[in-house]
């Protein structure tokens, strides 16, 4: 093709080329790419552990030593939760596009943004130290008193890694909250914010209010681990469940930290590729904010069988049902948003539709888990594993990849290869379901999580799951190659290749260092698509045919 290797116009990425200009940058777009590099590394570290686990579980005897397997699932959990899923969408897509979508020239505190990346990498190094020295075998939940008094592994270092990581979360969340409050362009009222901005805003609030409690929890864990005396020690009248209370006070909202930005991304994708306004914008924003708040009322549903008061369990179960309502509203709104659209099945849309389906399955099984009596049976079995992977991996990672493809032309100025991308999107959906659906059945059969072996009669389902995992691995690896390829040979993209309405599409691709030549003035809300005429109006008020 003639478009090969066309030089890009001056932009944020090619303006300066020194290493220092990247490592000391204050530009949110460059920091987003730095984060992207870091979390990609961790995604493949965590994915490597997952691959080994699924290989191991293909046979009841397995191929790893029990101690190695225990370290693998712990590493998989810790890396994936804190070093990939929680930072994934906020620090990359959020960092890159939040200022652009609200018409700002940068985040409020660029230095803190850069510091967040350094702190993130520091915590990553501490974690890698723990892994290299011999790993951690407690599971990502670090339940006491096993983690504090019994485990012979590097719990202290891992807890410190999680603690330091929290600073990065807080810095990023703080930056987004303040930016969205203070730096919106003229005319960008709250009801004109794209839903992705609402998603990031709500998730930032959750990061800010949940993370400190986990931080204190890990400090107490580290103290008990370090000196052998602590607040969770049952021999001294301490309550081991206190760790769980404070841990889940963070870690349940953490699930919403993963899913809320994904919901935002998917709302953008569905509106753009269905070529119509999102159905029930107000309902969507209210749903996101109420999920953010309700997420703090449900944590003890992880502890229904842990020995908490049964009355307390009833309260938490009821709360969990309530949090399902806004999620149900969102699924309904996304589905109805397809009605009378002009649906284009490009790769981001396939990811988005996959997201809705996987999220629905994950949500409905979550509903089953919220039912107290069912939870007693399937708690800590593969049913739970399957459920939260549907939400945290199936849904979130689909949205992440969907958003990445959607904004790829804006970030790089080049198109990704559409056919390859569609193939990867479909493969992700198929591979994912093949991996995790059998685990629902295994769970109800009673296979406990974190077991390196299982009775032979369960092998068929495990083999199926491992087969799916290999497909999933290919689906996740593919984009690395074709997106990398497109950086050099991809077709040049114009400012608004998809005909989308957000402010980020009103500037050049890739954007200049200061995002906009001059601060845009916002005239109307997002998603002014007209499926009847096929026209759309960008948020600065310009109509396009």
């Amino acid at each position, binding site marked *: 093709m003639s478009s090969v290797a066309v030089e890009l116009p001056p932009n944020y990425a090619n303006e300066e080329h020194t290493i220092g200009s990247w490592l000391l940058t204050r530009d949110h777009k460059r920091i987003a790419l730095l984060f992207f590099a870091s979390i990609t590394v961790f995604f493949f570290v965590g994915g490597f552990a997952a691959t080994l686990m699924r290989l191991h579980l293909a046979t009841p005897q397995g191929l790893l030593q029990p101690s190695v397997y225990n370290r693998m699932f712990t590493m998989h959990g810790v890396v994936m939760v804190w070093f990939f899923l929680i930072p994934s969408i906020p620090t990359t897509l959020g960092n890159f596009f939040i*200022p652009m979508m609200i018409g*700002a*020239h*940068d*985040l*409020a*505190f*660029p230095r*803190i943004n850069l510091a967040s990346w350094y702190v993130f990498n520091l915590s990553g190094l501490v974690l890698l130290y723990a892994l290299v020295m011999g790993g951690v075998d407690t599971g990502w939940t670090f339940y006491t008193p096993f983690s504090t008094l019994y485990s012979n592994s590097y719990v202290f270092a891992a807890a410190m890694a999680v603690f330091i990581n929290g600073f990065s979360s*807080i810095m990023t969340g*703080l*930056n987004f*909250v*303040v930016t969205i*409050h*203070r*730096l919106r362009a003229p005319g960008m009222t709250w009801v004109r914010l794209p839903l992705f901005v609402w998603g990031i805003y709500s998730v930032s609030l959750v990061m*800010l*209010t949940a*993370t*400190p*409690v986990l*931080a*204190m*929890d890990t*400090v*107490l864990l580290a*103290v*008990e681990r370090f*000196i*052998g*005396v*602590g*607040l969770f020690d049952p*021999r*001294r*009248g*301490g*309550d081991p469940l*206190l760790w769980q209370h*404070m841990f889940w*006070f963070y870690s349940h909202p953490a699930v919403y930290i993963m899913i809320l930005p994904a919901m935002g991304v998917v709302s953008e994708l569905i509106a753009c590729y269905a070529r119509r306004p999102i159905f029930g914008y107000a309902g969507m924003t209210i749903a996101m904010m109420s999920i953010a708040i309700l997420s703090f009322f449900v944590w003890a549903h992880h502890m229904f069988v842990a020995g908490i008061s049964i009355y307390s369990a009833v309260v938490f179960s009821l709360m969990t049902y309530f949090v399902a309502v806004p999620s149900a509203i969102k699924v309904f709104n996304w589905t109805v948003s397809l009605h009378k659209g002009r649906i284009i099945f490009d790769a981001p849309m396939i990811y988005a539709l996959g997201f809705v389906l996987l999220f629905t399955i994950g949500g409905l099984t979550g509903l089953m888990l919220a039912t107290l009596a069912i939870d007693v049976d399937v708690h800590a079995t593969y049913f739970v594993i399957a459920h939260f992977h549907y939400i945290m991996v199936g849904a979130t990672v689909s949205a992440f990849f969907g958003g990445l493809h959607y904004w790829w032309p804006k970030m790089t100025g080049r198109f990704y290869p559409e056919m390859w991308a569609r193939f990867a999107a479909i493969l992700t959906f198929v591979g994912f379901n093949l991996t995790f659906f059998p685990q629902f059945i295994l769970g109800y059969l009673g296979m406990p999580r974190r077991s390196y072996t299982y009775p032979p009669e369960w092998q068929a389902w495990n083999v199926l799951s491992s087969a799916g995992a290999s497909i999933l691995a290919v689906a996740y690896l593919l984009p690395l190659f074709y997106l990398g390829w497109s950086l050099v040979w991809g077709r040049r993209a114009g400012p608004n290749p998809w005909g989308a309405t957000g402010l980020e599409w009103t500037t050049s691709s890739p954007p200049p260092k*200061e995002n906009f030549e001059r601060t845009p003035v916002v005239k109307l809300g997002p998603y002014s698509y007209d499926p009847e005429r096929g026209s759309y109006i960008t948020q600065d008020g310009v109509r396009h045919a």
Partner: protein
Amino acid sequence: MPSRTIAPELQYADLAQQGDTAQLGMWVFITTETLFFGALLFTYFLYRNAYPHQFALAARDAVLWCGSVNIGLIMTSSLTMVLAINAAADGRRRALANWLLATAFLGVCFLAVKGFEYYLDYGDHVVPAVNFIAKPGEAPAGELFWVFYFVATGLHAIHLTIGVGLVLYILLWRVRRGEITSVYYAPLEVVGLYWSFVDTVWLFLFPAIYLVGRS
């Protein structure tokens, strides 16, 4: 001392917006800090409520005079801090420097008293895992009080040390280079917010540690 004209950063329309945003940022951070220390106090209330007698017995060894002197020092330092901000707003450079120096000095005094108190605690055999000896009747939960004590005061001391560092940075770097003027002194206000918050934490730790089991 020179006085500089400071330009707002790229993303701000003017210095007023920049300063206002910086303060809001600190308030958001204080929200997270409230939750951080609030979570620690949560563990405290939980165990004190569960083991009132053991806590009362254990807490009798807390050195009341150290805690009381320290609450006086830290409240005074909040006063000097706010007077420094007033001085900055009025453009009284000399007074600003003096009040900041006083604030940092009071902070250091607090840390010194705290250090001396740790020394006394060591003598009392109340340091868990080092030389803890349970008094009759306080076992086993009494030790929990002392774990809480060292975690809480240690974290508070770390926060205060950072605060002293920030005050000295404002004093020795920003004020000396003339970057704190009556037009733009938001960095000082931000540090002031942090300082007073650290003070607030001590206000809650004081009754939690020193006023238990006195009667």
